[in-house]
């Protein structure tokens, strides 16, 4: 199999941009091209991730995305999720048909409706949607089950918010940055019991771009490519009632990625991780499912302090999705942060330890119906 390397990357800030969607897309993609010193028509392929009508007010979003992404008359396509487009970009290079692929993900959350209104359209219109099902209500069911089965406390979940929003203070691209206490989180408005306002991710802008390249090309385009060692994804049942919300498909997605990367003991081999946690407790649950701690031990993991930015096993030094949630792009923001940490270029939110191997995780759908995992290495 051909190796795939990350050469350069660029990301927009999560706060509302003054640029329109096409210009915002253009500036980020121009930045990443300038960094590698390529013109857009020197690329072999472009893969765009964006959402259709619900996240940008346009259907067939690729039609509008095309110009800003620089895809005019190039081999190009579009995926519905940024982790999908990243994985697809890797596949295109591995196939031997392409040497350089620009992967970009485009969302301007400030210009459209609330996440819950949009995610309610994941639900089928006959059974689930009339019940008021959306990403938040599904997550609340999952959180309650998690607390009951494993005695995870509300305080432990709140600590994730304290950690991640605190980390975000040092990340110039993050959307929400503030020092909050466990009490602040517990006293914030109940959105959907047991979820409190500060435990739910915001809605953010976010355009992010990565230029992937085959091994030789990557070495030519940059000094130290970051290698894509493994990836995997997995899908769960659609109906929430058909699933054990605490035993989803993340272990399957992770096992594909670990196998590809030759990782047997994830906790030992991986130095830090960026986890997609639109709801605070999910960081703890996903950590268990990724094999970072034992089943039901997610609460103890946050209590131990190891997942702090200066801890032995930092999780979400960027501030995570709680600090910035450009829906479709949020998975690729995890990859970008891992790449920055590996390069030692994360600036003020650079973790204390040396990072050789990092894991990025993305999820969409109710209560983690679909998970993707990407492993990067120096």
């Amino acid at each position, binding site marked *: 199999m051909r190796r795939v390397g990350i050469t350069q990357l660029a990301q927009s800030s999560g706060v509302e941009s003054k640029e329109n969607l096409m210009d915002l897309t253009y500036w980020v993609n121009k930045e990443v091209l300038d960094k590698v010193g390529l013109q857009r028509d020197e690329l072999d392929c472009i893969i765009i991730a964006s959402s259709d009508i*619900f996240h940008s007010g346009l259907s067939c979003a690729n*039609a509008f995305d095309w110009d800003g992404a620089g895809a005019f008359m190039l081999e190009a396509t579009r995926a519905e999720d940024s982790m999908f487009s990243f994985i697809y970009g890797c596949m295109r290079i591995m*196939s031997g048909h392409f040497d350089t692929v620009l992967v970009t993900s485009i969302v301007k959350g400030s210009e459209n409706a609330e996440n819950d209104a*949009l995610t309610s*359209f994941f639900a089928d219109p006959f059974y689930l949607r009339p019940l008021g099902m959306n990403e938040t209500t599904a997550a609340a069911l999952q959180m309650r089950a998690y607390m009951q089965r494993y005695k995870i406390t509300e305080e432990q979940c709140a600590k994730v918010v304290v950690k991640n929003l605190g980390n975000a203070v040092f990340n110039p691209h993050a959307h929400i940055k503030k020092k909050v206490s466990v009490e602040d989180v517990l006293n914030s408005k109940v959105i959907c019991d047991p979820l409190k306002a500060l435990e739910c991710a915001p809605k953010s802008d976010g355009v992010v771009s990565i230029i992937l390249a085959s091994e030789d090309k990557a070495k030519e385009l940059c000094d130290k490519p970051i290698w894509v060692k493994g990836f995997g994804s997995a899908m769960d049942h*659609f109906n929430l009632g058909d699933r054990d919300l605490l035993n989803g498909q993340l272990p*399957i997605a992770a096992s594909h990625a670990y196998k590809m990367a030759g990782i047997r003991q994830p906790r030992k081999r991986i130095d830090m991780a960026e986890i997609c946690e639109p709801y605070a407790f999910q960081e703890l649950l996903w950590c268990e499912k990724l094999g970072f701690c034992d089943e039901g031990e997610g609460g103890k993991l946050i209590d131990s302090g190891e997942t702090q930015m200066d801890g032995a096993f930092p999780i979400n030094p960027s501030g995570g999705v709680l600090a910035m949630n450009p829906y479709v792009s949020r998975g690729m923001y995890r990859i970008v942060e891992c790449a920055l940490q590996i390069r030692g270029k994360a600036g003020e939110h650079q973790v204390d330890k040396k990072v050789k191997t990092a894991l990025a995780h993305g999820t969409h759908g109710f209560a983690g119906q679909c998970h993707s995992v990407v492993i990067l290495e120096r």
Partner: protein
Amino acid sequence: MGRAVAIIGTGQTKHGRRNDVSYPELVREAVIAALEDAGITFKDIEGVVHGTMPSMMEGISDTHLYFADAMGAVGKPVLKTETCGSTGQSIAHCGFYWVASGTADIILVVGSEKMFEGDGQATMTTVADPWFTKQFSAGAPMVFTMQSMEWIYRFKIPEDKARDAAAIISVSNHENALKNPYAHLRQKVTIEEVKNAMIITYPVRLMDVCPASDGACAIIYASEDKAKKICKKPAWIKGLSFRGEEFFYGESNKSIWPSATEAAKEAYSQAGIHDPLKELDVAEIYNPFTYQEMIFYECFGFCPRGQAPDYVVKGTFLMDGQLPCDPSGGVLCTNPIGATGLIRLAEAVLQVTGKAGEHQVDGAKLALSHAMGGIDQFNGITIVGSEL
């Protein structure tokens, strides 16, 4: 370059108004048909690619989540790619690269649409941007008619001549559809009926336009080793390409349609095709509008620019012509949009594997399949052959 990839199975639903099934059931019907055709089971599938038109079409977004069970995708990796009308070709390309990458040997690709449960034309106006273009949008016919008129005037084609040729295309597609058990519109029409049908957007009349259909299509890709083991007669991918133009309709010359022209050129170069009219045995062109089909003939190099009507009148593209186009009856008779581009590929596969039944083109060995999408903006092509 890279691993050889084959298609070892295809499946289609019966297309049309399918009130007898739910949307997931419709998807399931195509998936089961493809598995049966390939002689494999869900256990053999390593990953699934899905795509449709945009969410508003049926009021559900991210349909790969909704169809997880119907597609047998639970516990498996899934990719979702979507590029409007050209989705069918984009998901086909995604399945190809997945297998070519070496990360899987057998991949299922599924496209679907249940258009009687939504408002297709209303959805399509939302492809236009909300500030400048949407005010002028009137669904698909407006855009494709403008393109047709641009072409007629650019090449000084007498309107009557274009009208006559378009009528021949309508009649022949409807005739072909009568032989295709999956087709939606299965009725005989005459030249007179086409020419006197209700005007939709001048000069396009009702029988120059495709229907809206419920339908799904699935195909199964396999690596060279697996294909040779499992399948007696696989169809091999010979070339594939996708190109797109500017978002704003007025910025490109649609009469010579660069994206269609360049996509074809790239796919031909991969497949080693120099004279498509002679070397291709059959083409499944994405032809929701009769006039537009002629523009494709020219972009794909089947005839010189501005001369498609002459070739149509000569019968070049009829079932018994030099290069039969859309022996399935094409999009003109069946259009479940998210599936439509994939149906073109499935039909091309049926042709080169000799499984097309009553609408088989005798001895077909090399076939082109195509889809178009966006605001007249995207073109994707896949060429399949019976030989590796």
